[in-house]
C-alpha cells in the first residue's frame, strides 16, 4: 500500500466518503438542508428588504406632495429651457413629479380669481392626496379644467358646467371700467384686442382641505395661448425621491448650475420624512436582527441534533486509526456542502420573498444586493460547520472504545 503514494487517490477517497455521506444519507440531510434554507431565506429576504426600505418607503412618503419648491431669482420668470435643464439636473430616476405653475388673475362674473396653469399630469404625480370629484383633466381637451372646491361653492359650479373667464392679455394694461360708460360699452371694451375671454368647462372639483381649493387648475399651454404669451412659470413644484441631506445637496447643485433658479426645500416634509423614515428603518433593522439571531440559533440547534447521532460513527473512525483532524476535515467538508446547498437555495427563495413583499406592499420591484449571495452562503457555511464541529469536539475526547460492545 505504501508503494503507491499518489496524492490524488487520497483526495478521491475523501470525496467518495463525502458524497457517500451526503447522497446515501439524503433523507436525513433533507432536514438539515431545509433548516439551512429556511435560515438563508429569512436572512437574505429580510436584509434585502432592510436595504431597500429607505428607497421604497421614501417613495411612499412622496404622497405628501412636493418637497422642493423652485422659484425664479428676482423678478424673472422660469422659461421652458430652464425647466428642461432642471429636469435633466435632477435626473429622471428621482423625479416623482415636477410641475411648473403659472398664476394668472382672471375675472369671472367680474370677480377676481386665479387660474393656475400647470402640467396637469405632473401635478397629479405631485399631489396624489388631492380628492377630485369628476376627473383630472388631460392635455387632449384643454378647455376642460379643474376648479377648487371653494370656487365651485362660490360660483355654484357643478361637474360639466361651463363658465367664462376674462382678463387682460400679457403685456397689455387693463383700462379701468369707467363710471361714465354704460355696461354695454364697458363689455365691448373688454372684448377688445388687449383683452381675452374664453369658455371653460368644469371637469373636476378639487378638495384638499388647503389653499388649492381656491384655484382653478388648467393646462399651462392653454393658459399661455389664452393670454398670448410664451411659457413663463412662476414656480416649479418638485416631488423628488430623496431625504433631507440629498435634497439640500441637490438644492446647492441647482443654485450652482442654474443660477437663475432659487430652490427651497419644504422643511415640513423633508424633516418629518427623515424622522419617520428613520424610525421605520430602525424598526425593520431591529426586527431583522431579532429574527436573524433567533433563526441562526435554531439552525444551529437543528444541525446539532443532526450531528449528535453520528457520535458512534466518529468513534469508529477513531478506532480505525483516524486522527482527529481527519475526522474534522470530513465533518468540515460535509458542513461546507450542506451550508452551500442550503444557503444557495435559501438566498434565491429569500430574493423571491423580498420581491413578492415589495410587489405586494409597494407595487414595485426590489433592488437586490448581489453581495448578499456570497455573504449568506458564507454565513450558513460557518453556522453549519460550527454546528457540526462544536458538539463533536466533545466526542473527540471520548475514547474510541465506545464502539466496543454496549452503548
Amino acid at each position, binding site marked *: 500500500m505504501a508503494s503507491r503514494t499518489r496524492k490524488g487517490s487520497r483526495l478521491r477517497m475523501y470525496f467518495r466518503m463525502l458524497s457517500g455521506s451526503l447522497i446515501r444519507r439524503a433523507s436525513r440531510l433533507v432536514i438539515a438542508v431545509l433548516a439551512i434554507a429556511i435560515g438563508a431565506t429569512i436572512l437574505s429576504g429580510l436584509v434585502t428588504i432592510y436595504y431597500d426600505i429607505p428607497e421604497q418607503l421614501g417613495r411612499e412618503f412622496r404622497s*405628501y406632495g412636493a418637497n422642493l419648491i423652485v422659484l425664479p431669482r428676482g423678478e424673472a420668470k422660469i422659461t421652458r429651457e430652464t425647466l428642461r435643464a432642471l429636469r435633466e439636473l435632477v435626473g429622471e430616476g428621482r423625479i416623482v413629479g415636477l410641475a411648473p405653475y403659472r398664476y394668472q388673475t382672471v375675472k369671472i362674473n367680474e370677480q377676481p380669481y386665479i387660474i393656475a396653469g400647470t402640467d396637469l399630469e405632473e401635478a397629479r404625480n405631485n399631489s396624489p392626496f388631492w380628492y377630485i370629484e369628476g376627473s383630472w383633466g388631460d392635455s387632449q381637451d384643454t378647455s376642460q379644467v379643474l376648479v377648487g372646491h371653494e370656487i365651485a361653492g362660490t360660483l355654484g359650479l357643478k361637474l360639466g358646467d361651463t363658465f367664462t373667464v376674462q382678463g387682460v392679455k400679457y403685456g397689455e394694461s387693463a383700462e379701468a371700467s369707467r363710471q361714465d360708460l354704460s355696461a354695454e360699452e364697458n363689455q365691448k371694451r373688454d372684448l377688445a384686442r388687449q383683452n381675452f375671454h374664453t369658455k371653460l368647462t368644469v371637469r373636476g372639483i378639487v378638495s384638499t382641505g388647503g389653499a388649492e381649493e381656491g384655484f382653478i387648475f388648467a393646462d399651462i399651454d392653454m393658459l399661455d395661448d389664452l393670454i398670448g404669451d410664451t411659457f413663463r412659470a412662476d414656480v416649479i413644484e418638485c416631488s423628488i425621491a430623496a431625504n433631507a441631506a440629498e435634497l439640500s445637496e441637490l438644492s446647492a447643485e441647482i443654485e450652482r448650475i442654474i443660477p437663475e433658479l432659487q430652490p427651497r426645500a419644504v*422643511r415640513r*416634509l*423633508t424633516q*418629518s420624512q427623515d424622522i419617520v423614515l428613520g424610525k421605520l428603518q430602525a*424598526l*425593520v433593522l431591529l426586527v431583522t436582527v431579532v429574527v436573524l439571531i433567533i433563526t441562526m440559533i435554531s439552525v444551529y440547534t437543528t444541525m446539532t441534533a443532526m450531528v449528535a447521532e453520528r457520535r458512534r460513527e466518529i468513534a469508529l473512525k477513531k478506532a480505525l486509526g483516524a486522527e482527529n483532524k481527519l475526522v474534522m476535515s470530513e465533518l468540515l467538508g460535509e458542513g461546507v456542502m450542506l451550508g452551500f446547498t442550503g444557503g444557495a437555495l435559501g438566498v434565491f427563495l429569500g430574493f423571491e420573498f423580498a420581491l413578492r413583499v415589495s410587489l405586494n406592499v409597494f407595487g414595485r420591484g426590489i433592488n437586490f444586493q448581489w453581495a448578499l449571495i456570497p455573504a449568506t452562503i458564507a454565513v450558513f457555511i460557518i453556522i453549519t460547520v460550527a454546528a457540526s464541529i462544536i458538539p463533536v469536539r466533545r466526542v473527540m475526547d471520548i475514547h474510541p472504545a465506545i464502539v466496543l460492545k454496549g452503548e
Partner: protein
Amino acid sequence: MFWRMITKTLVRQKSKMMMIAFTVVLGVSLSTAMMNVMLGVGDKVNRELKVYGANITVRHKDAALMSDLYGLEGRGVNDKFLHEEDVLKLKSIFWGFNILDFAPILEGRAMMGSADVAVIGTWPEKHAVLPTGEELDTGLKSLRRWWEVSGEWLNEGGNDGVMIGHLLASENGIKAGDTITLTAGGRAMTFRVAGIFNDGGSSDSKILMTLPAAQELLGLHGRVSSIEVSALTTPDNDLARKAAQDPRSLSPDEYETWYCTAYVSAICHQIQEVIRDGVAKPVRQVAESEGTILSKTTLLMILITILSSIGSALAISNLITASVIERSQELGLLKALGAYNWQIVLLVLAEVMITGIAGGVIGYFMGIGFAQIIGQTVFGSYIEIARMVILIVAVILFFVTVIGSIPAIRYLMALKPTEVLHGK
C-alpha cells in the same frame, strides 16, 4: 407506566428535550414579539406621523379660504371668527382622546415700520385644565416640529415676545433679542424677538406671537380665525368616503359604525358639533398620506411576521423530526419489546407536547420582552400586549409540533425492530 416513561424521557433525555424546548422558546418568542409589534405598529407609526403637523383645520363656515391666497385679507374680507372659549371643547368629543395636539390661530396684518406684515397669534405651549379635571399640554410647538429655531421658542406667558420667520427677519435685518414695534388699527405694541424660525414654507415671512398679544394688537378679543388639530385617525375606507360626502346618506347602522370609528371625517363631524359656526376639514395632504404610509408599513410588518412565523414553525418541526429520528434506536427497542405503533406515537407526541408547552410559555414571555425592547428602542414607548397573540401562537405551536412529529412517526412506523438493534 405511560407517564412514568414520559417523565423518565423528559428527565433522562434532558439535553435533547432541552434543545427542543429551547427552539420552541426561540420560535414562540419570535412569533409573539413579531405579532405584538405588528399589531402595535399602526398606532406607533401613526403617532410618529404626527410630526407632519395638523391633519384637520377648523374655520368659520363663512370664512373664505381664498383670502389668504390672494393676499387680500384685511377688514371686511375676513371678518368671520371662531370663539376662543370653544377651543378646549375639542377634547370633549367622542374621539377626544385621539386628539393629540391642537392650537388656535388668529391671523391678521400689521405694520412694522412701513412694511405690511402678516401676524399670527397662537398658543405656543398651552397647559390647560379641562372642566372634567383632566390636564393637558398642547400648542403650536408640537405642531411645528420641523421648525428650525435660532433663539428660543415663544413661551406661553410671554405676551411681549414674538418669533419672526427667517425671510422676514433677514429682509429687515432682525436678530433674536431685538425689539420691534407693530401697529394695527391705531394700536402700537412693542415686542422682543425671542427667536427666528425656519419653516421652509409660507410662514417664513410672518410674525408669530401669543394669542392674547395678537388679540390685543388686532382688537379681536376672544376671537380666533382657525384651529389646527392633530388627531390619530383610522385610514379611510369606502364607508368613510361615503360619509365624507354626506353623513346623512348613511343608514343608521352605518352611521353608528362611522361615528364610532376614528375616521378623519367622523372626527371632523364631531368637531363641528362642538365648535360654534366651525367647519372642520381634513388636510388631505396629511390625512391621506398618513393612510398610505400606515397601510404600507402595516402590510410590510404583516409579511415579515408571516415569514418569521413560518420560519420558526419550520425550524421547530424540523428539530422535532431530527431529534425523534435520533432516538429511533430507543424507540425501536420499545417496538421490539412489543409496543404497538400507536403507543409509541402517543409517547412521542406526549413528550413533544409537554416540552412544547413548557417552551411555549417561556417563549411567550420572552417574546413580550422582545416586543417591548423594540417598542422602547424604536418608538420610546411600550407596545400594548394583544391577548389574541396567545391564542394564535398556541394554535400554531400545536400544529407545528404535530406536523413536525409526522415524518418522525412515519419513520418509526416503517422501522423494523431488528434493524435498530443491530445498530445500523
